[in-house]
């Protein structure tokens, strides 16, 4: 198990280093408006994938907690939710940067994807407010898990479903083609897919570290609760 864990960390590090560095060097198609900003695809999209992966891990553990009532599953949910917030910040910043150079603005309220993202982050913030305010630990876990399931489903609707049904500037939404259909040529694929795997791997690595940190806090710092 320890050997697999080590191999996982090595592979994740290699994939990340490769995608971050080679993403800056690889030849990209010369597309109007996008120009060199298309390289952001190697950073912006994988970060969101990592964030959604963490949200799914949190939801999965929340369901397991509600079924089995074992607090360790809620600890996992809590760690995963912290990772969701952690990855949403670079995701949002890289997206805003890209929007500035392609759409001409940092933020537009006409764009359903951006609105969906903002609302999803708000929902996850409310999750933390909910969990921090309940004195009883078991009750915290029940409410937190229930709200986490709710948050995940709502996030999927706001980010993945609703933008596809309305008019949107975002690629892959509102009838626009995604990068995969036309612009993502084979040179870019050699960076994009490793980047997705690398960032998802990094999210899991950080999540695992955070879980261990919470466990140590809980068992050795004398605190009754860590959330």
């Amino acid at each position, binding site marked *: 198990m320890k050997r697999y864990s080590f191999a996982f960390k090595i592979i994740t590090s290699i994939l990340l280093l490769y995608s971050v560095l080679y993403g800056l060097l690889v030849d990209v198609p010369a597309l109007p408006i996008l120009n060199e900003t298309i390289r952001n695809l190697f950073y912006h999209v994988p970060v969101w994938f990592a964030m959604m992966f963490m949200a799914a891990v949190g939801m999965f553990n929340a369901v397991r907690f*509600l079924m089995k009532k074992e607090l360790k599953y809620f600890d996992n949910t809590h760690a995963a939710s912290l990772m969701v917030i952690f990855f949403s910040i670079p995701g949002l910043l890289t997206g805003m940067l890209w929007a500035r150079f392609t759409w001409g603005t940092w933020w537009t309220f006409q764009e359903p994807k951006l*609105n*969906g993202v903002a*609302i999803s982050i*708000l*929902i996850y*913030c*409310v999750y933390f*407010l*909910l969990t921090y*305010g*309940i*004195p009883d630990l078991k*009750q915290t876990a*029940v*409410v937190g*898990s*229930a*709200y986490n*399931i*709710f948050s995940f*489903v*709502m996030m999927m*609707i*706001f980010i993945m479903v*609703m933008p596809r*049904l*309305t008019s949107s500037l975002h690629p892959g939404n509102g009838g626009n083609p995604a990068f995969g259909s036309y612009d993502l040529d084979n040179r870019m694929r050699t960076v994009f897919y490793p980047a997705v795997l690398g960032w998802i791997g990094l999210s899991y690595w950080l999540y695992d570290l955070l879980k261990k940190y919470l466990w140590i806090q809980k068992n050795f710092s004398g605190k009754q609760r860590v959330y």
Partner: protein
Amino acid sequence: MLPGLKHSLIFLLKTDLRRKNELLTLAMYGISLLFMIGYAARTVTDQKNIMLLFWMLQVFSVLFVERKAFLDLATGQNAVGFMYWHPLECFLSRWIYFFLINFLLGLIYALFFEMWFRQGLWFSGSGICFLLSGLCALHTVGFAASSFGMAHEKGNAVSVLAAIPLIVPALMIILKIGFYFADGLQGVFGGQYLTMLWAVNGITFVLSVLIFPYLWKP
């Protein structure tokens, strides 16, 4: 099927009729909002702004009404209810009861909006359908948030806090439909957004029903 549903509904009605202060609070709230609408009627003339005002008032009303949806259970005033009702009965009866209150308030506001702003919108077939759909969506989200607040020591505040980010998307879709209504284009574009609203509403409702049994008993 669900024999406790009727019992729970009657119980809610009787409890509210007994608690005169709750009824008076609701009445005072309604009258204050009507005063605001009357005040706004002097200055707001654009149809889209009127629509925005109407739905913002509905959001406040829904949050105000929903905050006490589970208050009796949360504060232990009605702990005996846990023995009588199945969680589904408890959920459905309260959902129906508070939706009726919201719908009644919505109809009153719509009546005054028609009187003061002369919108000529709400008391047609499509207007009622829009009002019903919009209120149902806001109510379902507010109700779900209220169920989360049930387990919290500051339940009232938390239910409002939990409801606000959840209510925003529903409100955005409602306003989109509302603006089409204001432009008289509801027949062309309204249907797509109405379907979306009902889809969000349905998912929220199903999720709330599934999660509620885990939340309702302390």
